[in-house]
């Protein structure tokens, strides 16, 4: 793996030789990629990472050579370089989310003071992608007052973390017992990150970061998640999504009537097709469970009006039609879904990815800020 990383980065250096301006201290492949990124050659720099399957080497290079590179353009360039480095690291982390994000170890530990109370602890060993985000996060949050660009970057970082589907990275692990600090077995990689804690410290009023706490806990600490969503259900910006998620939780708890009542409240709060689709889709499933096929059909058709040809709603509707005697119509719905090009992102299957749906727009805006 290391060889592969080194080879990929070496290719990047060779590629960059003619394409990018010389740096003051081209001490590593990572700084060459940063030069490309800063010069607006985003695809070249990110394309070089596509063959990497372990980002530890990249992280090490950024940690080692990043500080020098950040000062390479003088004080006038410092802020733009910070944003470029942080956004580059974020893109790398997003690519790397498909490699190992973390390892969770199960460790039996005996407390010397209580030797009879041996316990099994889970330890988290963060791999490079989450640590790349944290390295970048420290860069962007060094200013005394958080600004619009940092806000944008943090929104993008949360989107990447949500796509990685790691509640522990975002919100910590409420269930795992904390290790007694006298056990000197922790290394850097096992320290809880809790990314949202420092994001919230910088932007305490941003409802999307509050919502992210609920999203992180939704499948792990449902009571906590419900509390967060409940607090946000009337929020002008995220109230629609918070209400939809409350409804989804009620649906999962088989409270179909309660879920449907919540889903009805979603549309006056948002025009986000992703959220509206999910509210309608879950309504369809809940109505079907209540043995109301006509209402289920109406809701599923409405879901497909919000996100045409979406996979889950298409299969649910096609199957419902098939089972209620409209076989040809049902199969047409399925065929239409199968042949969609491009295939739309299915809101149910990306339910946990949450803000990742904003990633293209967020990245475009960050790159616009970086572009010379």
């Amino acid at each position, binding site marked *: 793996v290391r060889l592969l990383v080194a080879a990929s980065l070496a290719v990047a250096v060779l590629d960059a030789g003619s394409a990018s301006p010389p740096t003051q201290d081209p001490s590593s492949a990572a700084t060459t990629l940063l030069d490309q990124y800063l010069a607006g050659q985003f695809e070249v720099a990110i394309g070089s990472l596509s063959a990497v399957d372990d980002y530890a080497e990249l992280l090490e290079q950024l940690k080692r050579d990043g500080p020098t590179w950040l000062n390479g353009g003088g004080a006038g360039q410092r802020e733009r370089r910070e944003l470029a480095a942080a956004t580059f690291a974020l893109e790398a982390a997003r690519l790397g989310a498909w490699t190992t994000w973390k390892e969770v170890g199960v460790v039996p530990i005996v407390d010397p003071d209580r030797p009879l109370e041996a316990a099994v602890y889970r330890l988290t060993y963060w791999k490079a992608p989450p640590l790349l985000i944290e390295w970048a996060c420290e860069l962007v949050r060094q200013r005394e007052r958080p600004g619009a660009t940092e806000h944008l970057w943090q929104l993008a970082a949360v989107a990447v973390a949500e796509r990685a589907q790691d509640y522990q990275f975002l919100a910590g692990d409420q269930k795992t017992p904390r290790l007694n600090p006298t056990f000197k077995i922790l290394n850097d990689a096992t320290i809880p990150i809790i990314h949202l804690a420092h994001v919230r410290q910088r932007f305490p009023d941003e409802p999307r970061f509050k919502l992210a706490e609920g999203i992180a806990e939704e499948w792990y600490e449902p009571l906590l998640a419900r509390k967060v969503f409940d607090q946000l259900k009337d929020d002008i910006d995220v109230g629609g999504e918070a209400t939809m998620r409350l409804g989804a939780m009620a649906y999962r708890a088989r409270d179909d009537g309660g879920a449907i009542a919540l889903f009805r409240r979603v549309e006056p*709060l948002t025009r986000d097709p992703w959220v509206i689709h999910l509210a309608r889709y879950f309504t369809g499933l809940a109505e079907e469970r209540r043995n109301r096929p006509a209402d289920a059909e*109406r809701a599923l058709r409405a879901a497909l*009006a919000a996100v045409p040809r979406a996979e889950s709603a298409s299969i649910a509707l096609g199957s419902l039609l*098939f089972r*209620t005697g409209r076989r040809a119509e049902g199969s047409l719905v399925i065929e239409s879904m*199968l042949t969609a090009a491009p295939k739309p992102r299915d809101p149910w299957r990306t339910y946990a990815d949450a803000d990742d749906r904003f990633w293209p727009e967020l990245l475009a805006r960050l790159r616009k800020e970086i572009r010379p």
Partner: protein
Amino acid sequence: MSAYRKPGMALQVTAAGRRVLSTVTLVLCAGFFDPIATRDGAGQTPPQAPPIFRTTAESVAVDVSVRVNGSALTGLSAADFVVTDNRVQQRVESVEARAMPLDVTLVADVSGRTRGSWTTSASAADNIRNVTENVGAIAAILRPGDRLRLLASDTSVQQIFPMQAPAPAVVARLETQGLSSTYDALVVAMLRPIEANRRHLVIAWTKPIDTVSTSDASTLREVARRSDAVVHVVERDVDLRAGTAISPGGTPNNPLRMNLREAHVRTWRPLLRNDAAVLPEVAALTGGTFRAFGGLSDPNAAEEFREIFEEFRLGYVVRYAPRDVKREGWHEIAVTVPKLPDAEIRARRGYAIESAPPARTAPGPSDDLSRLATAYARGEIQSVPAELRRTSLPDLRRLIETFRAGDSDSALAAFPKRDALFALELIKAGLAASDRGTRDAALDLVGEYVNLVRSPLPGDIFECGWYGAVVAALEGALQGSVANDLLPRLLARCPADGRLRLARAFVSDQLAQMRATAVGTSRADPTPAIADGILSRYDEAAKLPDVAREANVRAAWLAHRAGMVDRAMTYLGHIRPPGNDRALDYFGELVRGQVLRARGRPDEAIAAFRSALAAWPGAQSARVGLMLLLVRHGERREAEALAEAVQADPGTQIDPWWMYWQGDYRLLQVLEANLRELAR
């Protein structure tokens, strides 16, 4: 042409002598599953209660496999089979060998490793190679006339290639995201309609675990029960422990010196269905087989495929015409061969004939709205404003209220920007209405959409542009108080938006003017104290380059009206040379003329009025202003000519000054055009 046909139970009309069989089959297969369609088919009508099959009008075909001592048995005839339909014995009309061409759907689980036991860790390249090999193996077994399609099952169900002639196919791309859509993939496979004289065979190479499907086990069983396909399931071993490694070493505080580590990548698993019974049941319900098997690319995979095909082809198609059973509903079938009591007989367990679907509901009151919204969603923008203008007031109000209530079928749901533009069309039309109820409905819509148009991300160009457009519409409808209430919120969202900043000042100006007019003063001029507060807002706007000119023009006119002539002159001095807004150029010169006249500088005022006329030839306000000055200046001939021109004007010439108090309304078309471009 394709129609539904049930190989296991195809219902056919033997309309002897009237049509060739294939035609009749096509017509009646559709009718079998959709009673409505049969009304126009071969002269059938829905049966009267109690509905009983007519004896010779329809027939059912059942795929049957007979095995003795593990081998397929051939050579049986109609007399050998006994078939019951809802426990009523039927007369078998014919037995045929299953020589019909096959449509094969291969469902390949690519959510993890595709070789050996299924595990969560997978190499995309390995999966592509393995699946390609197996597609090749199946293609080699199929015969000319058979067809093959490939569905890959992962987080999503992907159709890698549609039903096509069997040929070695290279699978170029497989998405592997790690969740399991086992149930959905089978539902999708089984919902495929079957063409006449073909059989549909589904071979599912999958595992019993499902983590994300919208279909649950009961749905899957129900679809299997009603499907035309014969499903063979080859279940793969699952090794959920893969990915966990034991690391040696441990720590000083770890007396067992052991550390079990598990790799985590995208850990969300919304569901965990692991029903060992469901896949065998699906196979049995469709008359297929269930086998436990290793990996997709095990060495004997091709042999396994071959066995499935051979067995299928060595089976029979048993036909009978249902007698003495109720037509609609579930029909349980049992097939036996009495002379072979120990034979293993596989056939589907039944079939269903559905009742007529419920009649479609009559068109509702929201149809007009749906039609307009659909047109708008399609990009047919121009027709909508014209149609709204022609709409009667009660209807317009109803349209707005229906839109506010939400139309779940609206095609605009997928296009939030077009939805916001459509709302703007309704707002404009409503604000222009003469009755208060419609105007109030439009204002309610403004209040609602100011929230709904908010982008999830800050500083969105479309959102800010939409605010600018709706404020322009409010200014045009002299709804300054509504705009005034909204603007602080809008500016908090779009602090750098010059037009909104200018609107904050203008709307205060407009309100002061309207209040003064309302109390009946002879001159609707603000006091200096009131003007001072508004001028500070114009000063703020003048700091923004894109609206600085207009801010200074409007500030000059306000200062002039408040009797602050020096301050007015200062603002005039800040006005930059003409730009590309002719109306604004005209305003500037007209205001300059008035201020200079008040300042007692008639020559310069005359020059300003002439410039105003150059900017907007024939404009009445500039003509009158110039005429009055010329009269005082003694230039009566030119003044008389201007007076005659004013009187002779047919009224077709628009004077932009008439729209001065409507603020940005004059720019609304441009603002909307920009928004449409963003919504494209």
